[in-house]
């Protein structure tokens, strides 16, 4: 029982990460009809926004400490962050400690700008081109982006911890009357889940309740008619691309304490997020979110040792196996619309 509750929690947490990335992907696909293989790269860049900000906050000058020696026996050079000089060590430490949450503010404008720039500079020219061309150009872009990041940040993962206030985990078990330590869950992952829920909710509300959103939704359904009505849908779509980029970027920022970011994390997520989107049904936002959670939960259950004892290797293939079964029983995924990306 405890094990099952725990894996549901895990599934929700994993699912929220999948759903968040898939949401942005679907947003771009639904509005612009573009298959964006660079979406994983946007997620990765978001994560590196957090890395960059923490680097900025820890910008240092060196002082030579004669009392200590470095590995060559020379006097040790100690790095002192400028924030220590400006705010004192205690405040400085707090600021550095909170780098990841602060990065959200930093990442939003950066990601929207990158998204808009990408759309105007490149993607715009590919609306009418075959999907194969879109795949090639965005894949090329993804490689270029990740190589740039690798050039500046190296290939090794960079630890980007959560603020120390969120270290440790919350004991759900005692709340539900189980023994202590049976159902524990890290604070940061709970925050991640809540954050994902808020972002997903915000995107839906935005599309549902604002005029802007209504126009975009109408445009997703029938672009030509909306254009005939004299509405400049292009401008709105550009902004949607920016928003989608920001959603991916924020997912990346918040993910950094969970896994240390590295330059290829986008590629690692790319295939998975496409599977999620397709299982959800191309072009369906609720489908993408639902599929994210379904796959997240099933993946968690497949990783239980009780399950693996019966079916060894199930954890290796579960996502793909589920994808195959769903696509064979529901031709257009969970909530896909007819005629989208079927030719």
């Amino acid at each position: 029982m405890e094990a099952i509750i725990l894996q549901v929690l895990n599934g929700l947490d994993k699912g929220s990460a999948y759903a968040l990335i898939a949401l942005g992907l679907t947003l771009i696909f639904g509005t612009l009809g573009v298959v964006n293989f660079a979406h994983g790269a946007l997620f990765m860049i978001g994560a590196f926004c957090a890395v960059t900000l923490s680097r900025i906050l820890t910008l240092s000058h060196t002082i030579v400490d004669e009392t200590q020696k470095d590995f060559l026996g020379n006097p040790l050079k100690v790095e002192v962050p400028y924030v220590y000089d400006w705010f004192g060590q205690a405040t400085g430490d707090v600021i550095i400690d909170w780098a990841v949450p602060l990065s959200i503010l930093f990442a939003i404008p950066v990601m929207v700008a990158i998204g808009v720039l990408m759309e105007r500079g490149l993607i715009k020219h590919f609306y009418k081109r075959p999907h194969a061309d879109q795949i090639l150009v965005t894949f090329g872009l993804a490689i270029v982006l990740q190589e740039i990041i690798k050039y500046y940040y190296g290939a090794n993962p960079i630890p980007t911890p959560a603020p120390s206030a969120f270290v440790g985990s919350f004991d759900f078990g005692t709340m539900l009357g189980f023994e202590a330590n049976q159902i524990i869950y890290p604070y940061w992952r709970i925050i991640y889940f809540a954050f994902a829920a808020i972002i997903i909710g915000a995107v839906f509300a935005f599309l549902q309740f604002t005029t802007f959103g209504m126009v975009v939704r109408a445009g997703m359904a029938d672009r030509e008619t909306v254009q005939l009505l004299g509405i400049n849908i292009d401008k709105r779509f550009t902004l949607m691309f920016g928003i989608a980029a920001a959603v991916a970027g924020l997912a990346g920022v918040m993910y950094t304490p969970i896994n240390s970011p590295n330059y290829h994390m986008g590629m690692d997520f790319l295939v998975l997020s496409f599977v999620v989107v397709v299982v959800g049904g191309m072009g369906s936002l609720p489908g993408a979110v639902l599929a994210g959670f379904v796959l997240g939960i099933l993946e968690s259950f497949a990783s239980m040792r009780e399950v693996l004892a019966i079916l060894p290797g199930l954890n290796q293939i579960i996502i793909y196996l589920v994808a195959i079964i769903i696509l064979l029983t529901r031709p257009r995924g969970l909530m896909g619309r007819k005629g989208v990306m079927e030719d």
Partner: protein
Amino acid sequence: MSKMTLSRRGVLTTGAAAGAGLALPTYLPAASHAGFTNAPTGSTVTLGFNVPQTGPYADEGADELRAYELAVEHLNGGGDGGLMNTFSSKALQGNGILGKKVEYVTGDTQTKSDAARASARSMIEKDGAVMITGGSSSGVAVAVQALCQEAGVIFMAGLTHSNDTTGKDKKANGFRHFFNSYMSGAALAPILGANYGTDRKAYHLTADYNWGYTTEEAVRTSTEAIGWETVAAVKTPLTQTDFSSYIAPVLQSGADVLVLNHYGGNMVNSLTNAVQFGLRDKLVNNKNFEIVVPLYSRLMAKGAGANVKGIFGSTNWHWSLQDEGSKAFVQSFGTKYGFPPSQAAHTCYVQAMLYADAVERAGSFNPCAVAEALEDFEFDGMGNGPTLYRAEDHQCFKDVLVVKGKENPTSDFDLLEIVEVTPTSQVTYDASIFGGELGTCNPGA
């Protein structure tokens, strides 16, 4: 048809000389005169440094390449001579190898066996490399080692920790300086017993591929021997990035130690996740919950950041060792690059030196002569104390380091501290236990 299996360099200069003033093209039955593949005939000898330059281990590969460049510099008489000064064998003169200037070519393994073999073949076929070295995974090491056996060149393995490399997949032309899973287990167990007691329940998370299996096996066997109980062992996919669903059930199992048989990105992520879950703050069975990482590398420690603090693991070498060899290497490397070398850099540097020394002692580049010179070669002064290159399986036997994540690191490189130098005798095993067939050396051609 005359047979030539993968060779080039020998022909090249002869061909050029013969073809020089002649209008007629020279037909050359390939390098049969040399007696072995890519016999260097000019004033230079080419070595092939095959390291990951792209992919997740690119930084490790970059460090390996730095070490090789340093080794080449020292072999050719440049720099401060590095470990040549402390090496017990004094065959190397700093005038290249056998008087030939050392040149090198580099390639990208991408940490994929296909790409690694393609790169190695291009070094052998195109550039005339007479020895291939480097790499950052056992899959690559085994694949390239088999290729070198076929082609008739020497392979000096880089970072490869699986028992298989000098176990079931061992080859007469391949040599490994790095330690292996078995040694990790043998070295770790006593320290774990001393620090955590002999009444412990261990939970293993194991990367689901060959290296993971051998490491789990080694750690299990050696810890069970000191009285630990293995509660469960769960295999995790190589492509896994989020290990939460594997870590969450650990506490429910009643285990009080978590062993992460993971390497590279897997290890960074699983350790980060485990610490996130607050496992190390828990009290289970009235004992502090502990985490163990059988194989450490500095780059992984760097990736996991503060999460490694106080966590035990093993490593081949560490720059804080105080023997003369290690100090000389750190000095040399640190002066050139500004930071201390990693264990990958050390093992690669030493491999290049050992190869050069063996050639000098054998008086020939012939792989069979080199192999003979390396087999049962005992040396000292290269870090890790007295070392034996065992003839039966071409595995180095030397001290193994047990390390622990440092509580108060002073820099990005100062993340681990040495807890114990496990003596060679404690990690030596019988050569036959892993099976495999060494075969006989192949000089090619």
